[in-house]
Structure formats: C-alpha cells, structure tokens
C-alpha cells in the first residue's frame, strides 16, 4: 500500500513540477521523454480547456502567446475534480495582474465577459418573464419587485468590451464591421432566456435601472426614478420592453402589499 501511495505521489509531483524534465522515480531512466507525453497531455488539456472558454482572448493575443499565458495560469488554478467544463474561473483576475495589461488594458474585461457567457450558457434553465405575464397587472407595475433571470449577468468595463468582442466575432452574413472602436466605458448584459446566449449593450440609465431592480431590490417605480436621475434620456417604457425581450427577468416576481404575489 505504501509503495503504491509513493508511486502516485511521485508521479503527480513530477507532472506538476515546474522543471519541464522532472521524472518520477517510478519511470525508468532514459524514459524521460515518455513521461513527458503524460505531462504534455495534462498541460495541453488545461490549455485547450482554457482556450475553449476564452476564444476571444485567444484571438486577441494569438495562439502562441495564449499558451504562454495559460502556462502561467495553470499554476494558479487547479482543475475541479473530474471535469474541465468550467475550468478557468480565475483567468480574468490573472490577466488583470499580468504585465499584458500595459499593452491590452481591456483584455481582463474581455475575459470577464467570456466567463459570463460561459456561466450563462451552462447555468440552470428557467422561464423568463414575458410581456404576457404582466397582463392585467398594469396598475400595479410600480410596486413590482423583479429578479434577474438566473442565466443573466451584467459586465461593466472602462473599455468598449462590447465593440471589441463584436469585432472579433462577426456574425456570419452580416455586413463586415469595419467601424472604428470608440474608446469609452461599456456595460454589457449577457442573457440566455432559452438556449441562445445573447449580449446587449446597456445605456447608463438602463444599467442603473437594472441594477436597482435586480441587485438593490427596489420596485419598478423607484428603479425608474433612479434611472432618470442618472440619465435624463432614459426611456422607461422602451427600456422595460427591451429587458423583457432580452429575457433579463425571472418569471417569478412579487407585488408586495395589496394583492399578494404571483404564484406561477
């Protein structure tokens, strides 16, 4: 038993060792390059999982440099037992602390956006709130407390992350986006009401409105007031309809005091 334990310990240690030619004692001398096949598979597996989760970061820096970033990153984040499906949670934080931020200051935020896309894509399925759910409740809308749909995230950045992401991922058949990217802050709402992940660029008013509703727990009326204070151009009716179309709210909502709450 102890002999086996030391085999597994030694093999695992050598796989993780920073020296690229580390070999466990269980592998005969002269077979270092064969042990390297396992080491290469382990590392390649992590790099590829990271690349699949962050395809736009990879495009922006190129395959070769992405592998170098991955090489550094895999030292800091170990994989969850058994599956690489959600590997790379800390990659944005890693990039934010990496010297690459000098030349590509938006890279970490692109990674946050891609992570949000992955999490939204794999989170639990739930029904979104649709306009029809509100029929007959028109006079109570102001008091309504809404929750964000579970497959929905807001990513705010000082950089034009929506424009950069879109330029790197042109929609097939659409006119090629040769428009120049304006340096400005952008906030993106990532949604998946059904099976398709969508992204929406939010205005300042929309961001305040959505945050007030889904994070601060304000009712619709007060969220509108906050949004109008932050952004005089905020169009309440059009924006609310847009959020419903995006599938940004959960189908369950509350109307406190009075008529109780929706129990759908």
């Amino acid at each position: 038993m102890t002999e086996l334990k030391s085999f597994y310990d030694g093999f695992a240690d050598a796989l993780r060792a920073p020296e690229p030619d580390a070999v466990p004692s269980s592998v005969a001398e002269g077979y270092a390059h064969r042990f390297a096949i396992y080491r290469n598979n382990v590392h390649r597996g992590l790099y590829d999982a990271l690349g699949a989760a962050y395809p736009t970061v990879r495009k922006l820096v190129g395959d070769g440099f992405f592998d170098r970033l991955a090489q550094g990153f895999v030292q800091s984040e170990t994989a969850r037992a058994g599956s690489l499906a959600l590997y790379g949670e800390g990659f944005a934080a890693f990039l934010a602390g990496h010297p690459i931020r000098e030349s590509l200051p938006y890279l970490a935020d692109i990674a946050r956006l891609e992570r949000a896309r992955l999490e939204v894509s794999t989170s639990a399925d739930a029904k979104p709130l649709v306009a029809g759910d509100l029929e007959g409740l028109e006079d109570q809308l102001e008091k309504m407390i809404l929750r964000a749909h579970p497959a929905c995230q807001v990513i705010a950045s000082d950089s034009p992350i929506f424009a950069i992401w879109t330029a790197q991922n042109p929609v097939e058949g659409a006119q090629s986006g040769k428009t120049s990217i304006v340096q400005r802050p952008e906030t993106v709402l990532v949604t998946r009401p059904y099976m398709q992940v969508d992204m929406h660029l939010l205005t300042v008013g929309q961001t305040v409105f959505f945050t007030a509703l889904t994070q601060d727990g304000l009712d619709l009326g007060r969220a509108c007031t906050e949004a109008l204070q932050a952004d005089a151009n905020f169009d309440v009716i059009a924006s609310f309809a847009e959020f419903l179309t995006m599938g940004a709210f959960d189908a369950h909502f509350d109307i406190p005091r009075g008529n109780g709450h929706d129990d759908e």
Partner: protein
Amino acid sequence: MKTLTQLPDRKLPARELPRRAGVGFKAEHAQDIFGSKPAVDWFEIHPENYMVAGGPRLAMLEELSAQYPISMHGVGLSLGGGEPLNKNHLADLKRLVDRFNPAMVSEHIAWSAHEGLYMADLLPTPMTQTSLVQLVDAINTVQDFIGRRILIENPTSYVSLPQNSIPELEFISEAAERSGCGLLIDVNNVYISAHNLGFEANAFIDAVPGDLVGEIHLAGHERDANPDDNVLIDTHSRPVADPVWDLFDRLIARIGRRPTLIEWDNDVPGWDVLAHEAALADRHLGNAVAEKFEAAS
C-alpha cells in the same frame, strides 16, 4: 452496408447498443447529425462535458439521446487512482445516467485525480495485487452507486512501470471477473501499448475473454516527433491505421460482432470523414459475420 441487420427504431433509444458502428459525438457535427439524420447507429459522449446545470449543451444531448442510443464513456472518475472516488463527480454522473438512460456506461482503467487535484489525462495504473483490489473496489462503488453494470477500458501505455507484477490482460480480466463489470477493448490502445512496451498484440487480442467484451473502440494514432524513440501516441486525430483494422478483424472473427466506436477527438474532421470511418467499421463487422457463416457452412 446498411442491410446487415435491421436498423433499430430511432424514436426509442435501444436498451442495448447495436452491434454496429457508432461515432464519438462532437458538438461541431450537431448540425450535420440533426439536419440529415445520418445512418450511424449510435453515439458516444463523455459525461464530463455535460456536467453543467443547464443550457444548450444539455439540450443538445437531450436531442441526441431522443434520436439515437447513446453510450456514456467517462474520462474523469479516476478508477485506478488508489484513493476514494470523488463523491461530487459520482453524483454528477448518476444524475446524467438517470436523466438520459444511456444504453452503456464505461470508464477507463487509469487515474486522473490525486489528493484533490485533477490532472486531465488518463495516467497509468500500476498492475499489482493491491491495486487490483483497489480497482475492483472502485468499480463496485460506481456500479452500486449508479445501479448499473459498467465496462472498463484497457489503457494506452507509454511506459512500463517497474511496480507491475500482473500482465495487463490478466489484470483487466480479473478486475472484470471480480466486480462483475464488462470490458471495453480499445484495439488502438492494444496496438499502441504492444508497440511501446514490446508485447505481442496478436497474442493479446487472441486471449481477450470474448464473453466479457461489451464494446470495442477504434481510433487513429501518431508517431511521436522524437526521432530517438519510436513511440506511438494515442492522439485520436487520424483515421484508424491498417494494422489496427487487422487486429479488429482478428478480434471480431473470434468473438463475433460488438458495438464498435470510431473515436476522433483532436483535429476533428468534417462529419463526412467520420461517417466514412463508421461505414468502414460496419463493413468489417459485416465481413466478420460473412466469414463465420462461410466457415460454418
């Protein structure tokens, strides 16, 4: 090639995998598969790719399993790691098995987890009396937990471990006998291991206990770039090599047809290339039946 046996009704997944060619499912082929309903009899998936809460990946698997029998071929349980299996991973696997009711569940004789760390590769399990007991325990744990018999796959080997005291075929057969599981024989692995470790592939194939074999895997391999060492690597990145087809023919001529998977995981080609490999495997399976018939008459 499609007249060897009657095709199963695809509306209801079969309880058993058909003894014909199946293909490893890749998301990039989903449109081809769902759009044209190709005449492939079953698909295999890695359950690890579907261990998520919801969304399009699971929806895709829902659609696939509604139309074809599927096999769940695990890569992350670490059966041969000599430590207790990860409870969360087992629970995730059971959830998928319960939801999709696959026609087959299989895993590798390998390890990938060690003291809470996961190394995404199939690492070599030492073959000793002690590790055999540990492996049998692990297989029993899985079979009890998910409530099904599983198949275990023979490994690809690059190095011969000095600890080994039991020959590979004896080790895997004994594990199957003791646990009541079946064997998944990866013929490409047999070829690669025989080449890399220097044993006789034909002798291995001839000694495989046919009654334990529930599935066969075929895949492509590559020669390592290192010029000083003639080592083959299990890349799943190419068509099945001729000597692997020969070993496959040799195996099925003796034990009969089995569900046979074409695996292609790296440098994945267009769907038509995989469909062609599957048709080729079906032809070999058909020939095996024909030869048996001729020999008997």
